[in-house]
């Protein structure tokens, strides 16, 4: 067991999660806030441990099944940071609705651990392990709100379809194993290069793997679960699903397709090109037709997945780093948008319809401003961070020769701008349906402000993250 210290963050996370689970058992109902603080504390310490690895630390552990490199530490830090912010936003929401408190946090922690394992895995089995750890936590989190029929239905759909997708992914992995004789990604890569690269078995496996990945990301035509789950799940869980797991899914793509199957890149770029184009078109068009804001954001996610895949289509370090930038910035921008929705969903009311946003500026100026910044950034307007993310992805895809894809992406961004701007117009210019003020806790306000500011500041200084993303794929 060499280099175990590399896995310190995950190991700590495991112990901490179990500790939270056990401590929660002995807490009286009035002491539930202890669980919250323990959760945040564990995440924070894990974040510090992970952040310590950013930079030079690199190596493998567990006989090569686990790896730390330039990409993993950065992505894990962001995952943890976003999880911390997400829990700040969700705290009051789940308390109000009495969604089983302790379990929610513990499942959240296990999900984060799953994402970390996905990000750091170097072996087909580890990837699958991390993925299922995350997926099972998510199924349970969606189902936690038992008194709500929509949530139960969403959980059922998510579970069945997720199982189908996992089955396909596992089937694909088994075919890759069959044709290369290894589970280790580096060995697979070597085997494919040296031997018969075009082996039909491996390519068959690749297709199944891509279906699995596309499902996890929510790319068209494997996106059907996204709107139903986003809509049916409690908003706190929607926030959780739509943010950090996207970063983890990106990491999984890199691990599987770049670290393992890069030899087959001519095959998977074509598939990604199709998935990206479909996602861009379907996501943006359907978002327009939505009156429900959670569904609208669900379709918006699908269209952003299309953008994320564009960078992968380029299949070169420039494209990968552009996609990485996109995944990170998308995650924390969406975090802000859902954070505002959670602020609105107070006192048992749910902010689900677009009308609930009307006149928000007069009810809570900070929330409205943060929402505006987030939506404009998602629409890709300079100087916000979403503009730079789109620009760098488009640059990568154009220099790789896929001009038609870039044209679709740009046209669809224009279509997309419509529904973002409509929401902004409602917040600032329409009269509120319910004109009562929407108060928020101090820590939520502070997090919202920092989150909104990050969208602005990182848009003006994109170099701070971009440099890290470029370094992750250099050499």
């Amino acid at each position, binding site marked *: 067991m060499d280099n175990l210290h590399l896995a310190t963050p995950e190991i700590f996370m495991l112990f901490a999660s179990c500790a939270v689970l056990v401590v929660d058992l002995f807490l009286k109902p009035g002491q539930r806030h202890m669980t919250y603080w323990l959760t945040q504390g564990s995440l924070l310490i894990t974040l510090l441990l992970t952040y310590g690895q950013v930079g030079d630390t690199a190596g493998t552990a567990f006989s090569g099944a686990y790896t730390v490199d330039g990409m993993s530490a950065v992505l894990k830090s962001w995952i943890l940071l976003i999880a911390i912010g997400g829990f700040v936003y969700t705290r009051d929401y789940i308390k109000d609705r009495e969604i089983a408190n302790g379990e929610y946090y513990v499942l959240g922690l296990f999900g984060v651990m799953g994402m970390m394992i996905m990000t750091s895995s170097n072996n087909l089995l580890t990837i699958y392990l991390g993925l299922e750890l995350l997926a099972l936590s998510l199924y349970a989190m969606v189902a936690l709100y038992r008194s709500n029929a929509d949530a139960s239905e969403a959980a059922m*759909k998510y579970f069945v379809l997720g199982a189908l997708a996992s089955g396909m992914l596992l089937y694909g992995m088994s075919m890759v194993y069959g044709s290369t004789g290894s589970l280790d990604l580096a060995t697979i890569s070597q085997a494919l290069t040296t031997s018969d690269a075009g082996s039909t078995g491996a390519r068959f496996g690749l297709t199944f793997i891509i279906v699995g990945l596309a499902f996890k990301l929510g790319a068209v035509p494997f996106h*059907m679960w996204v709107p139903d789950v986003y809509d049916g799940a409690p908003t706190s869980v929607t926030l959780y699903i739509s943010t950090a797991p996207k970063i983890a899914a990106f990491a999984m793509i890199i691990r599987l397709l770049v670290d393992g199957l890069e030899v087959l890149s001519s095959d998977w770029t074509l598939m990604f090109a199709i998935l990206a184009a479909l996602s861009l078109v379907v996501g943006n068009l359907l978002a327009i037709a939505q009156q429900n804001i959670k569904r609208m954001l669900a379709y918006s996610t699908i269209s952003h997945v299309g953008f994320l895949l564009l960078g992968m289509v380029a299949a070169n370090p420039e494209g990968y780093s552009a996609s990485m930038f996109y995944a990170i910035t998308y995650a924390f921008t969406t975090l802000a948008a859902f954070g505002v929705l959670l602020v609105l969903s107070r006192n048992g009311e749910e902010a689900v319809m677009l009308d609930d946003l009307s006149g928000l500026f007069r009810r809570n100026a900070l929330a409205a401003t943060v929402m505006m910044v987030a939506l404009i950034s998602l629409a890709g307007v300079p100087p916000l961070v979403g503009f*730079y993310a789109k620009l760098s992805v488009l640059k990568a895809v154009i220099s790789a020769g896929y001009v038609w894809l870039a044209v679709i992406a740009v046209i669809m961004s224009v279509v997309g701008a419509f529904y973002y701007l409509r929401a902004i117009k409602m917040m600032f210019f329409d009269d509120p349906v319910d004109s009562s003020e929407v108060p928020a806790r101090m820590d939520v306000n502070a997090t919202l402000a920092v989150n909104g500011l990050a969208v602005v500041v990182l848009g003006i200084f994109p170099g701070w993250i971009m440099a890290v993303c470029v370094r992750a794929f250099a050499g």
Partner: protein
Amino acid sequence: MKFIYTLIPLCPLFAAIAAGLFGKRLGRVMSHRVTIGGVAMSFLLSLIAFQQVVLSGNTFNESIYTWMVSGGIRFEVGFLVDRLTVLMMLVVTFVSLMVHIYTIGYMHDDDGYQRFFSYISLFTFSMLMLVMSNNFMQLFFGWEAVGTVSYLLIGFWYKRDTAIFANMKAFLVNRVGDFGFILGIAAVVMYTGSLDYEEVFVKAQPLIGQTMSIMGGFEWSVLTVICICLFIGAMGKSAQMPLHVWLPDSMEGPTPISALIHAATMVTAGIFMVARMSPLFELSETALSFILVIGALTAFLMGLIGIVQHDIKRVVAYSTLSQLGYMTVALGASAYSAAIFHLMTHAFFKALLFLAAGSVIIALHHEQDMRKMGGLRKYLPITYWTSLIGSLALIGFPGLSGFFSKDLIIEAVHESTLPGATLAYWAVLAGVFVTAFYSFRMFFLVFHGKSRMDEHTEEHCHEPPNVVTWPLIALAVPSVIIGFMTMGPIVFGQYFEGVIFVDDSHNVIERVREHTTGAMSMLSHVPGSKAFYLAMAGVFFAWFFYLVKPEWPAKIQSKLGFLHRILDKKYGFDEFNQTVFAAGSVGIGAGLWRFGDQGVIDGAVVNGSAQGIGKLAGLARLSQSGYLFHYAFAMIIGLLVMMSIFLFI
């Protein structure tokens, strides 16, 4: 030093954010303390920069942050702090500081107090970004940012229709200039592939003789096109004919703004920019001639209009136009150092004149018509004396700062051999008489003669508070001495060596140096100077017409009604713009709207595509049926399609 230079523009920015976003919470007093503190800090740090650059000789040229690299062109934020920059920084921060303090008194009763402080601090930030830039992108940022703030401030009293009209006008006219400017920058990027000043200047040398064809057969020198485009930008910002029309109207803004933005700093951005680009402009004599002629026309014709104005601020505004014309003439004659020198002296005495006019306006409860003033000398002694100093400096009375800079420009133009130089020489010389006449016409009408105020105003007329008078005194000091003190080093010394480039074939300053060596020798030439006698004649006629025979101007006006009407209508620029451009474009717009927009675009393209997309969305929505087996089915179909794609392709 990098840190200090970064801090110089950031201090006012943070102050502006604080006063702008948290103004209500900070309250009036804290807001002005914060913004004045920010600008004072900038001024002090600029002094450190002066010490570093001028006294220790450490020019700074570094990029602070790379925004992005696209197609081999770097978009950066960077500072070039050399002797030219430092001079501008000192002028901007000093005048801005004075105006900040003065504003406490001037805006005392205004509801938009905090908003005003936030804007002027934001302006200081933008202007500093503009002058400190080391590349074209940041220059353009600063250029647009000062334009935006100017727009906001002209329309500061947004409930007045005239203010809204004026800021709309300023906005539109500046669009024309900025369009030329960005074309110029685009041409620079196209032919040199860089935005960085240093690189562009090096790469411009091989462009000599290269031509480009615009609109078919005509071949143009690339450098001439670049320089003229850039100068069109300067014409908009520095209000040169025919893009000057916005500046007189900008007087709708509060007076401190007229002093800071529309006299001392922002309008000189164009002058600064041309001086900064001297290595480019020196390569195109055509562009220089163009600049010379435009400047000369502005200097003379705009001064004439000043004679017939009744609004005290408008007289000073036309005077500003005319003085900007002088600076432009100097640029055209390649006397860049003289232009910058005049820019500096003008900043002080013109800010002084504006603030003095503002002081009069406060004392008379916001009355601006000179026909309702007169005899104010005994009520406003400090304003009186400082105005006198400002006016004398403006007309170029020997020894005061304006004398050195203006006479130098006249001398320099006299030496120039470029086409148009003769016209320019006579225009600026005649301009001296005009300047003296309108300045003292205003001075006598306001401070001397019989009082024409109504009783109520006269009773309450008194010197405004200290925050108003102190900046007047603080500006009067440099208006007197700055010319004498700095002329030697700036113009005749080595101050601008390595910063401003002048081609030997039109180095007029070198030729002036043959017979004039410095401030003292300039003073000794006074008895033989045409300009001096013209200025004195101007003062004399003003005295004669407005104090000795006050009934004469009206008689002359009725005799020469035709001339008066031309001047009164400001040569018809406004009417022309409004009937041809404004009404014309509204007409074209209406036509296009009816046929093109409503018919084709709205009908077919927008509504058509919107409806199409709406229908498509409705159809696609059907696929989201909510049934689990439909979803699973779609996934399997997707898998099959992807399989077949790679099996059969």
